[in-house]
């Protein structure tokens, strides 16, 4: 049996090797042959889901809502203590030191990530900035967004917190954080297609990663040192309800 495992494209670049290590270890532990899919963009992710029989998805929370409610997936696990947060940053010496300093007509650079944009917009509501008030500069990567900011081509930039923290020390020294979200209850989730009947060995292998040194090493590579915890159907539904409140 071969199954397809898709990883949402918004992980930090240095985690790439970790996902391949995870795939190798899960195959060994579960006895299932797993084909790893790592789309480079949300668009490519959608194409893969439409075109292939994707059995398991490590999904970002907003995509997970659609996948659970409309595409026949169920949430089975999530990384423990690793919620999805975002950072709004400005150039270090720009004079923009707080969200209040961002005004109507400002330019914000960001990679194409719907979740980060949505959470960022919710944070900007507090200073009366709406999506239409902002000039958006969509970059290929978060690193490109940081370069835009440092060159003075944007007033602020949005980042996934994990990616922001992984930027080089030199890059970080030229930026300052205006705000970081602390939503806690929202995280990536592991989804299994309802029609994938023999998912138990896979799920067991995933949930027991912390039990072996080999598994611990993979979790470290993924920045998920606490491992995965099981999710009930209600846990998934609760997160979807929560995200529903953030849509507008």
């Amino acid at each position, binding site marked *: 049996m071969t199954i397809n495992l898709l990883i949402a494209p918004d992980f930090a670049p240095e985690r790439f090797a970790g996902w391949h290590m995870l795939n190798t270890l899960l195959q060994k532990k579960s006895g299932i042959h797993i084909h790893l899919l790592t789309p480079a963009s949300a668009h490519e992710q959608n194409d893969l889901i439409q075109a292939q029989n994707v059995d398991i998805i490590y999904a970002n929370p907003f995509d997970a809502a659609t996948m659970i409610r409309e595409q026949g997936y169920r949430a089975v696990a999530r990384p423990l203590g690793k919620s999805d947060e975002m950072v709004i940053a400005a150039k270090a010496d720009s004079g923009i030191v707080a969200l209040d300093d961002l005004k109507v007509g400002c330019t914000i650079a960001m990679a194409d990530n719907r979740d980060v944009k949505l959470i960022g917009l919710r*944070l900007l*509501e*507090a200073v*009366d900035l709406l999506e239409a008030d902002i000039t958006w500069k969509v970059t290929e990567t978060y690193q490109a967004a940081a370069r835009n900011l440092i060159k003075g081509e944007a007033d602020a930039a949005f980042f996934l917190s994990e990616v922001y923290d992984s930027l080089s020390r030199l890059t970080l020294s030229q930026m300052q954080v205006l705000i970081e979200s602390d939503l806690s*209850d929202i995280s990536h989730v592991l989804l299994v297609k309802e029609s994938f009947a023999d998912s138990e060995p896979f799920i067991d292998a995933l949930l027991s990663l912390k039990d072996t040194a080999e598994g611990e090493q993979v979790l470290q590579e993924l920045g998920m040192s606490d491992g995965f915890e099981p999710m009930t159907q209600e846990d998934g539904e*609760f997160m979807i*309800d*929560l995200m529903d409140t953030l849509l507008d």
Partner: protein
Amino acid sequence: MKSVQLPDMDQPASDATAHRLNYSDGLSRVVYTTENELPYPDGKLIVSRVDLDGIITHANDAFVDISGYSRDELIGAPHHILRHPQMPKAAFKDLWQTVEAGKKWHGYVKNLCKDGSYYWVYATAVPNIRHGETVGYTSVRRKPSRSKIAQAEALYRKMLEEQA
């Protein structure tokens, strides 16, 4: 509909004004308010869930922290434990009618803390629909802007005058 009688609030040590609140379930209690506004915690969401009777079943850490109550005091209490006397009844009537109709509700709300302080939120409430049935409601609050708070204060003042 299950009703839970909340005890009267303890009078805070600082200057506080006493009010008797009458709730829609026919119960009432004395609450105290002060002029102390607590800042909304930056970057956070304040999350709670209630059952169909409006009894709190879940409160996240941000909710517990700002309320001044312990989690044990909140779980099992009616959600109107947060009701500030400067909130018009019509706002909550609209909230309940909207979510009971299966729809999402948004609004600016002034909430009351255990010590009489208050904090403003932009609240969104949604019904928890499971297998086609509503089993409870989730409320998620975000930080409101000062300009929206000022608008809401003016509107609610007018609504309270009309309510009186």
